[in-house]
């Protein structure tokens, strides 16, 4: 059991997402930084989709009510366990009664606090992810509050302490400007319907992330993306990563809590293996879109899976399997 002592404003229980219900209007939800969730679960010997606490950027204090192996990945929050500083991307062991403090994110946005055995809230439609709009899943379908006591699943994980290399070092995407996070983008169905100017601007602009951004999507600030000529579209399915060009002209990237359908023309889609990079770019930060091909997107997916496989192999080599 973990008790929330002081909550981050928007901390919630998230897992790898709820799939298979998009056709009835239920999106995937799940961790904004899926790589951080998978990495944390790997370090703990959990199933890849085990649920964890997602902490967006602001401080949170929790108390472990039993001896618990845990892992902290994603944003660098300068976390301490009863005053002991914990490195980034780290797994450690808390004794019953110890308090974990996550500070303001010094780098990145979304931190993942995973525990051995996972956060054992009841699954809803096959997932423990919080569906905030639908008020189901996660912990009572809502954001976490002080006094919440979260159940932890069974685990035999021991007290091992170790970390793994931060993802931006393991999966560098050359060309990252100092002030813009580069992500790879496939042209989407209506790409050709946008004006030449809009298409050029998509690739050339350092897009500023607006303050009107959240788990549902990021609104971007930059040049207006105009269509070559007006088109009428029926509502169609959306997935996280889709970049829409609404009538106002300022693009929106749909993210983990995206609606399942929309009617704005789609100029591009951020490839899934790069969504974690968006999740770790703060509001006010900038994104740069690099055009990629379908084959390059598949290769990026393979590279991310290889990174996780390499961690798994080295953990075993170092004798740090599930029971570490």
């Amino acid at each position, binding site marked *: 059991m973990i008790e929330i002592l002081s909550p981050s404003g928007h901390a919630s229980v998230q897992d790898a997402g709820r799939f298979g219900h998009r056709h009835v209007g239920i999106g995937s939800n799940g961790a904004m930084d899926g790589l951080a969730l998978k990495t944390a679960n790997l370090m703990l010997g959990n199933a890849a989709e085990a649920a964890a606490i997602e902490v967006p950027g602001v401080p949170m204090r929790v108390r472990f009510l039993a001896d618990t192996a845990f892992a902290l990945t994603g944003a660098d929050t300068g976390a301490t366990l009863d005053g002991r500083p*914990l*490195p980034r991307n*780290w797994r450690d062991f808390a004794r019953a009664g110890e308090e974990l403090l996550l500070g303001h994110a010094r780098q990145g946005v979304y931190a993942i606090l995973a525990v051995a055995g996972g956060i054992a809230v009841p699954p809803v439609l096959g997932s423990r992810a919080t569906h905030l709009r639908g008020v189901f899943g996660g912990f009572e379908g809502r954001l976490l509050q002080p006094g919440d006591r979260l159940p932890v699943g069974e685990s035999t994980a021991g007290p091992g302490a170790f970390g793994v290399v931060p993802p931006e070092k393991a999966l560098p995407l050359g060309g990252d400007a100092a002030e813009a996070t580069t992500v790879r983008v496939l042209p989407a169905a209506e790409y050709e319907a946008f004006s030449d100017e809009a298409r050029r601007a998509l690739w050339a602009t350092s897009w500023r992330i607006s303050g009107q951004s959240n788990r549902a999507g990021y609104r971007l600030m930059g040049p207006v993306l105009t269509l070559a000529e007006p088109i009428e579209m029926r509502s169609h399915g959306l997935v996280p990563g889709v970049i829409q060009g609404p009538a106002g002209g300022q693009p929106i990237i749909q993210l983990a809590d995206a609606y399942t359908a929309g009617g704005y023309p789609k100029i591009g889609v951020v490839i899934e293996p790069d969504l974690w990079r968006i999740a770790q770019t703060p509001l006010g930060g900038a994104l740069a879109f690099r055009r990629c091909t379908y084959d390059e997107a598949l290769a990026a997916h393979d590279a991310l899976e290889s990174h996780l496989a390499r961690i798994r192999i080295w953990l075993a080599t170092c004798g740090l399997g599930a029971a570490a």
Partner: protein
Amino acid sequence: MSAAPDTIRIALGAAPATDAFGLAVRLDGAAVLETVQAEGPGLFRALETPFTPAAPVRAGWVIGFLARGPVRLPVLMPCDGWVLAAAPDGARVGHGTPLFRILRAREGIIP
């Protein structure tokens, strides 16, 4: 010249050529520097924000890493004290390679 009873005298000086860090500290005339060595092979990795010599560090805190592939094994502070010098980030090390020069705190020095 004798120091007042509640005064600690710290002398920093050049170490013998054999000292990996070229750093010597004598406290009240006695050498108190210790070396933290690698417990096995790997690449030494510094913390993203390393401790400065002014920051008191408690026993058991992680002060650096021994990297094996993507895995980072902790190098722990063996006692309360201060971290004065570290091996270069990315250095290939083996069992017994000096990683840190630390100043051991005498009882009561760290509040």
